């Protein structure tokens, strides 16, 4: 493929491409390489031992499991929120629209604190849930709730513009062709929003995997039960076991990368169909 040399506002492909590679290297690849190098400081047997330690494995399961569940919840409820904001006009709509972004701006420690206050055994909601045997704080449920809160704006903000661009007459066309609302939703609206929803899902998921601040407040950090991988890394660091921390970090990196790659491939496959429309 030839490099495109069309006049544009930002000068020169050479310069911009140079910046792109530089930034990627300096801010993404270099630190990641350092991590891998650090992790490689261990010999192979020790590396395997560290990363397959039951405590570590339990933390992977919790971290990625809770993140997946949270992102899935977000995709459903985030869609409903986006739909409400786009399709209806009601008093206080702008206010709600602004509130969506709050988790973006809030320091994670603050959201953790807030969630603890609500769900603690003597908290606003916790005091009613606890007698029914529903334990939120110091339990995986609490972690999932925290991650859902953190990821929600990602889904809403990616689905919202896609929904705004989805013409209303497409739904009307489906209706005149005899499709039920159910059929229209699953065959017309959802496929059109799929790329945006996958992007939202990816962002929410990636954010959740990396989340640390809010979880430490609500999780209780009980090894094997409510200990997430980022926390485990911190613990290893506190023990001055840099190599072990890096090794666990490498595993996390690998899993995250694999999952993001998978989602991206799904998107690519899906976008192949709509890609031509972007060229118009």
């Amino acid at each position, binding site marked *: 493929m030839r490099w495109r040399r069309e006049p544009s506002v930002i000068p020169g492909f050479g310069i911009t491409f140079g910046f792109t590679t530089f930034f990627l290297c300096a801010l993404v690849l270099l630190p990641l390489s350092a991590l891998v190098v650090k992790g490689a400081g261990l010999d192979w047997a020790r590396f395997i031992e560290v990363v397959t330690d039951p405590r570590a494995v339990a933390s992977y399961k919790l971290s990625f499991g809770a993140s997946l569940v949270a992102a899935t919840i977000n995709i459903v409820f985030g869609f409903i929120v986006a739909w409400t904001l786009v399709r209806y006009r009601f008093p206080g709509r702008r206010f709600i629209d602004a509130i969506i972004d709050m988790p973006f701006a809030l320091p994670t420690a603050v959201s953790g604190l807030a969630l603890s206050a609500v769900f603690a055994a003597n908290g606003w909601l916790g005091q009613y849930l606890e007698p029914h045997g529903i334990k939120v704080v110091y339990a995986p449920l609490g972690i999932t709730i925290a991650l859902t809160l953190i990821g929600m704006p990602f889904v809403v903000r990616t689905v919202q513009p896609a929904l705004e661009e989805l*013409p209303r007459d497409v739904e*009307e*066309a489906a209706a*005149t062709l005899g499709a039920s609302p159910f059929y229209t939703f699953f065959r017309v609206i959802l496929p059109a929003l799929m790329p945006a929803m996958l992007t939202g899902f990816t962002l929410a998921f990636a954010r959740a995997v990396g989340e640390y601040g809010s979880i430490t407040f609500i999780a209780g950090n009980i090894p094997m039960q409510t200990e997430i991988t980022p926390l485990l890394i911190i613990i290893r660091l506190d023990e001055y076991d840099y190599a072990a921390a890096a090794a666990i970090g490498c595993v996390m990196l690998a899993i995250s990368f694999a999952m993001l790659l998978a989602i991206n491939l799904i998107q690519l496959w899906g976008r192949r169909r709509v890609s031509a429309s972007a060229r118009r």
Partner: protein
Amino acid sequence: MSIALEQVTKRYQGQPVVNDVSLNVAEGEFFVLLGPSGSGKSTLLRAIAGLVDIDQGTIALHGSDVTNVGARQRGVGFVFQHYALFRHLTVAENIEFALRVRRMKAADRRARRAELLKLVALEGMDQRLPAQLSGGQQQRVAVARALAHKPQVLLLDEPFGALDAKIREELRRTIRIVQRELGITTVLVTHDQEEAFALADRIGVMNLGRLLEVGAPRDLYARPATRFVATFLGAANLLLAQQNAEGLRFGSAALDATVRQPLPAGREHEVVTVLRPEEIELAATREQLTSSFIARATVEEMQFTGALERLRLKLLDNQHALQSSGGNGEASMEVTRVQPERRALPLSVGDTVVLGARRLHVLPTPLSSFAIHASDTAACQGLLQAPLLATLAARMKTRLVSCAELPDDARGAQGITPGVAVIAAGAGAADQTAQLLRAGANEVLLLNPDTGLPQQVCMYWLDDAARHATLAVAASLLRHLPADALCIATAPAGRRDPQRAQALRALLDARSEARAAHALETRTELVPGEAPQAVAEFLAGLAAPLLVLGAADTTAAQSTLAQLHARLPAMPVMVVYREGAVALRREAGR
């Protein structure tokens, strides 16, 4: 009837966007709804499809009432302006959508798809995505998709709006061929009159939510009944002429154009005539004209458009007779000439020419122009500001004489400025009205400087002889004002009174006449009680009424007006006066 609409009304936030529309479309007919944007034509089409709920009226498709049936069950084919294709589906999947919904077998679906693609000349495009097609091709897919489930009605909402001229033409032809081949009842909405002419078996022209006229393209063009249709359907010069028993007079020039309905002798009436740009003859001298002389004019502007030469002329005499078309008060006239005409008399800007009318059409509308009558300039200026008057004059694109002299009884008919006489409502208005009517005015409009647009136009006549004219005037007003139409009659309160039955019959007659002659849907109200007081009480209960008061006797008009005004001093009243006989009858057969 394939599609039957009965008094369909749709309101948005109280404002009617489709106002009392009744329409029948025959089996296999290609019907075009034509109107400017905001005229309600798209809303009406969507109402037929079931995409819009209507507030009043009924919609029937092939004899069955579908007013309360959803779009899904109506099963009409609908083509949207912006195609509304499913972008993530291929052409094949788009076309098969309706069939898939109906769980048709795959083999049958394929066969039907092939058939449809052949019909719209898109064979071999099955596996393309909409985004890989041009605009014209996408719209063809949309048409094929809409026809897939073999609907009995095809509705198209500005289907060529987003396409360029050449493709538009091509697609127009395709749609006409498809329609003929399938014999499917079709309604197309457009704002493009050329498109309407090219496609339609019949055209319905809409404006301000009302369906003004329905007819074959040729008839509507040659014999429009309303100003709006005359100017919207092709270019038209609207001229004011005087009509009397002898015929038409245009300023000082008598026209030998034949008048269908001569007036009774004595009374002269101002009428609006339509002169198409291509029906104007230009000559160097009056003797060289082969048609009847109208005026002299100078060439102001010339435009070469290929086949035609377009001229803008400024009249040198009879200027007052021209209705300002642009609203800027400039008295100019549009003329088009074909090349042989141009070669016979080459013109350049600044030349003086003589105008002749080859063919004139007199609009049956009773409202021609307005003239404010008041005792002093300040009062005239006040009335000139009245929103109702300003709106009417602007929408009718007609002449508004800002200050005409009040007639004195001695001078008689010659002393009055033609058109609707406008005077200030209030004390003395009833006497002034009688004076104006005696002086030769046919219509008098009473209003205040702050009179706004009415929400109801009410018709009430003192004499059956005036009914016809009252309805005509009200219909003319309602074409330019989006308001409810209401016929009022009074009857004694008693139940079995024979007068009551008679009044009721008169109301129903009026209603059917309004519908037949003016395509106007009206509601009727039988008010119990003594005539003027009961009517006044009823009107007082309405939000913003305008009364059209028909009279055949000046004294009766005067006393009724005085009594109505005592109760409702701020209500605008249009007094319609006809001396016994009917003055202007609408052309039969429309």
